[in-house]
């Protein structure tokens, strides 16, 4: 099984670290993983996206043609990436600032008002982790409990202080998604 996910949004939205976190977790779980950030512009303020491929076998290409999952944190990303989503795929959308109407009938859309949820937690900075939590619930690419338990290891020492906040954010997103 090879599962491809594209995380996308604005430069400052923590899109890359979402993908990075997922990739690290999957690697710890012993999977084959590629993580490929692809910032569109050398400069600040552009759009950013990254592709995470998780697989049980060696991965041929880190590029996701026909990804199974997409996370779109802003409008341009939603517009751009929903069209490449594989039929039957799932797109998680930051509904706080994205109009989620899509022309495609063959895909599933999960609307998460991440900005509002983050605001409730007191800082917009955790919006990405909220989305990641929601995404994990819906995709089940890595075990949510595993990620929670190993978050320190996954994020690296630097982020030690933030672990607790991030765990809460992940959980907020996870529980936002109904079974």
């Amino acid at each position: 099984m090879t599962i491809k996910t594209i995380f996308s949004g604005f430069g400052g939205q923590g899109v890359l670290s979402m993908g990075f976190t997922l990739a690290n977790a999957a690697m710890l779980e012993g999977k084959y993983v590629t993580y490929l950030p692809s910032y569109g512009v050398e400069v600040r303020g552009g759009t950013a996206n990254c592709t995470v491929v998780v697989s049980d076998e060696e991965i041929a290409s880190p590029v996701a043609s026909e990804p199974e999952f997409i996370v779109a944190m802003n409008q341009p990303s939603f517009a751009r990436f929903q069209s490449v989503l594989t039929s039957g795929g799932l797109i998680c959308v930051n509904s706080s600032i994205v109009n989620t109407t899509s022309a495609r009938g063959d895909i599933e859309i999960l609307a998460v008002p991440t900005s509002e949820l983050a605001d409730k937690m007191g800082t917009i900075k955790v919006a990405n982790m909220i989305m990641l939590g929601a995404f994990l619930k819906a995709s089940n690419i890595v075990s949510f409990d595993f990620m929670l338990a190993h978050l320190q290891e996954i994020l690296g020492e630097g982020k030690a202080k933030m672990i607790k906040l991030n765990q809460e954010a992940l959980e907020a997103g996870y529980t936002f998604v109904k079974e």
Partner: protein
Amino acid sequence: MSGNAALGEAAVLAGCTCYFGYPITPQNELTEYMAKRVPEAGGIFIQSESEIAAINMVLGASVAGARAMTSSSSPGMSLKQEGISYLAADELPAVVVNMVRGGPGMGNISPAQSDYLQATRGGGHGDYRTIVLAPGSVQELADIVPLAFDLAEAYRNPVIILGDGMLGQMMEPVSFDNIKPPKEYPKDYILTGARGRPSRMVRSLLFDTKEEEEHNWKLFRKYQRMEQNEVRYEKYLVDDAEMIVVAYGIGARIVKGAIKRLRQENLKIGMIRPITLWPFPAKIIRETANRVTDFFVFEMSTGQMIEDVRLALEGKGHIHFYGRPGGVIPTPIELSRVISRHYYQQSHRGKK
């Protein structure tokens, strides 16, 4: 681990004690990794004032006997050409990394393969060559770095690692278990102060044209030895293939994905992936042409390696080409479609 980090870590483990570099996307993560890691390991890190300064610091460190490295991306590589020519002329080892980006000019920072000719033909002046290594995965990158240092010292010549932003930024699991501490190479040319021995000089100025000519032929023979001994490539499903794709680096990796798909549809496609772009695996390609008539060259450029394939085939066979320059990364699906189209054209032609 990211390709950039793997590269840096492998270098340090392979005994690289000096890194000199100037920021440029998409290889900044490597410079930043080295900024932290090299001093930790007791080595020397300088963010130089330019790419030119960096390559010349490398030259200085190399002549002082250290394993030294620099890295850059396309525009910065152009600036290093004089220095690389000097390293080759002075017969000094060094590893130079180019994480190629879309060009020419400022271009963009997306992965590209359009510095192939610069790397393999010597963008610098004079008759010289550099071994050019093109890894296709993070693990291979980690494996190739110590090899690059060894080749550089064994031949006393600069070695170029040609990657791209995709390889640098991609994260994959990687093991460094294969890396051993560097062998002892003879260091009878380095400058340490003339203690207990005659003084030495390292130079490439040879006013006497006969001397310079001799030096050129000496280098030439060295390059011939490299051509004989250092060709590296990977064969992928070549044995039963009716069409051979020639691609390298990250391009080859996408091709692999495409071939996997095509094999499922029973299209007999294989691949020869040059790992050394120079010396180029011409022989294996030429030999394969005894059996296979169609070669499909894929490059993330408007076509540069295709010249080497043409040189290898010497008129044999039929060459197909697909190029995506400018930093565009095609998908395996796209490639599989293009390849299959050419494949059917080919069978069609065969039937005529």
